């Protein structure tokens, strides 16, 4: 009897601890979001979207940083995602279980969790040193390298989910694999691949470390891809650590904008995936 009570007590204790752990995790998320909203909301105004980043102590906005982030993220996705999608296609359709594919899959998973600052150093050595100066293009390349593993992984997973019968039907009609892939598999896996793109955008749009010494930063409006360009994460980094109140407020407002957009992106990617799965369960 006594022993049973002891076991039950132990069980209860551990379950309560696990509840506390979960609460702590959720509390951290809530605390971070609350901090961002309470600090950031004061800084939200039209000036953010119409004015440039100010000199120390001055008033201003984040227009050039928002523009730079959008351009580099877009460019990064435009360069990175086709590579990721094609490589994912190779793994799912051609390579399958060959030794090369196994190696690529492994390396891709390593790249997926490799520190982003290493990628920044890599692009610095490859591009910035050769060109002799920092540039938005180098920043976009660093982001592209980070986007490749994400899109590769989701593309391969999604292509593997397409029913084999569809592939066989296409082949039976005499289509070559490329035709099957483009006309049958890609349309069937479209929402899955788009989910991968959204996740990749979410991943790279908040990255700071790889931009520090590729795109650097720029206090002024610049659309030149061959010159340093302002971007939101690096501006947040600089302004948050500055002693000026105005700069810190801008940093909080920028942090709020960036987090909200990333969370919206991640949630919509999840919703899309859920819709896809429920559609597959009931339809067809």
């Amino acid at each position, binding site marked *: 009897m006594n022993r049973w009570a002891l076991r039950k007590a*132990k069980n209860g204790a*551990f379950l309560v601890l696990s509840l506390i752990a979960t609460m702590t995790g959720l509390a951290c998320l809530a605390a*971070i979001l609350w901090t961002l909203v309470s600090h950031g909301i004061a800084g939200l105004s039209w000036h953010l979207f119409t004015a440039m980043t100010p000199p120390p102590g001055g008033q201003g906005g984040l227009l050039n940083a928002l523009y730079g982030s959008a351009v580099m993220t877009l460019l990064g996705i435009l360069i990175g995602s086709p590579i990721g999608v094609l490589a994912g*296609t*190779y793994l799912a359709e051609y*390579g399958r279980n060959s030794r090369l594919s196994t190696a690529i899959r492994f390396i891709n998973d390593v790249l997926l969790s490799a520190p982003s600052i290493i990628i920044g150093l890599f692009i610095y050595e490859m591009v910035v040193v050769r060109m002799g100066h920092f540039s938005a293009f180098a920043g976009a390349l660093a982001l592209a390298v980070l986007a490749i593993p994400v899109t590769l992984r989701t593309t391969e997973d999604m292509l593997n989910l397409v029913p084999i019968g569809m592939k066989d039907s296409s082949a039976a009609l005499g289509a070559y694999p490329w035709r099957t892939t483009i006309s049958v598999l890609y349309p069937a896996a479209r929402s899955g691949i788009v989910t991968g793109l959204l996740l990749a955008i979410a991943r790279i749009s908040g990255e700071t470390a790889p931009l*520090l010494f590729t795109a650097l930063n720029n206090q002024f409006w610049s659309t030149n891809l061959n010159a340093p360009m302002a971007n939101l994460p690096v501006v947040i980094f600089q302004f*948050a650590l500055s002693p000026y109140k105005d700069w810190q407020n801008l940093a909080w407002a920028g*942090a709020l904008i960036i987090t909200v957009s990333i969370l919206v992106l991640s949630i919509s990617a999840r919703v899309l995936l859920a819709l896809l799965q429920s559609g597959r369960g009931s339809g067809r």
Partner: protein
Amino acid sequence: MAIINPRHAAKQLIYERVFRSATLSAAILVLLILGGVAISLMRGAWPALQTFGFSFVTREIWNPVTDQYGALAPIYGTVVTSAIAMLLAVPAGFGIALFLTELCPPLLKRPIGVAVELLAAVPSIIFGIWGLFVLAPVLQRHVQPWLIAHFGVIPGIGHLFKGPPFGIGILTAGVVLAIMVLPFIAATMRDVFDTVPPMLKESGYGLGATTWEVMWNVVVPHSRVGIVGGVMLGLGRALGETMAVTFVIGNAHRISSSLLAPGTTISSAIANEFTEAVGDLYTSSLIALGLLLFLITFTVIAAAQAMLRRLERRGGATV
């Protein structure tokens, strides 16, 4: 009946070859990227490694004025902050995974799971700014004085909690890292626990075991490899994390016996000093730090992936 047009067929074959080689070259590019990272880091680090040799990793000195660089302090900071993060995040992640798989009402399972994953999506710079302006003051006012008062007097480990409560420092960086890697560890463990066949768990319950006993004696042994893989994946993240640490570590190139003192890590040293580094040897030393980080994280992540893969294969074989 359609007649096959030889011209058309030949064209199809060419398209096929083009498409196939395009996908193949994209796939090979992934290999080249990893190779390129290794080679470019080695080339960049070469001058520093040539100058300092093996002593680069054993010396604590970091002096841009006299051009003397050693990586011991950043290595120490990286290892200790990650160790603190793991110490806190592994039990907590285990708890969350236990809660999600065994306790959670089905209705809440998805929302809580998604919330945990959203914590993983928050960019690291946000953790940094939050850690500096919110967490550090809280630790400075409430937690660190308590640690100093209660643990600072214990012989043996007391020196770890000596000195004034700065707020920022090794300990704070470890705590921020713990919060950052928590969702990764929790999500991997949950996925691993979900692969345990229900039959095994039911057998445990059938013998009269409590939830905890089933967890500890059935689920954990069955998913050991996956748990270790998940933990090491989290460790890989913690070792390489840059921005969050840069905000709260204090950036002091020295090894203090106290966890409350400011320090530095490999990644935060690079992030802080790289654009300001003047002189080839300085830059090269920072790249050498990057090379060290690459080697460390590559080993950890590769080991983690190998373990998770082993689990996947085994899961595929038994189910």
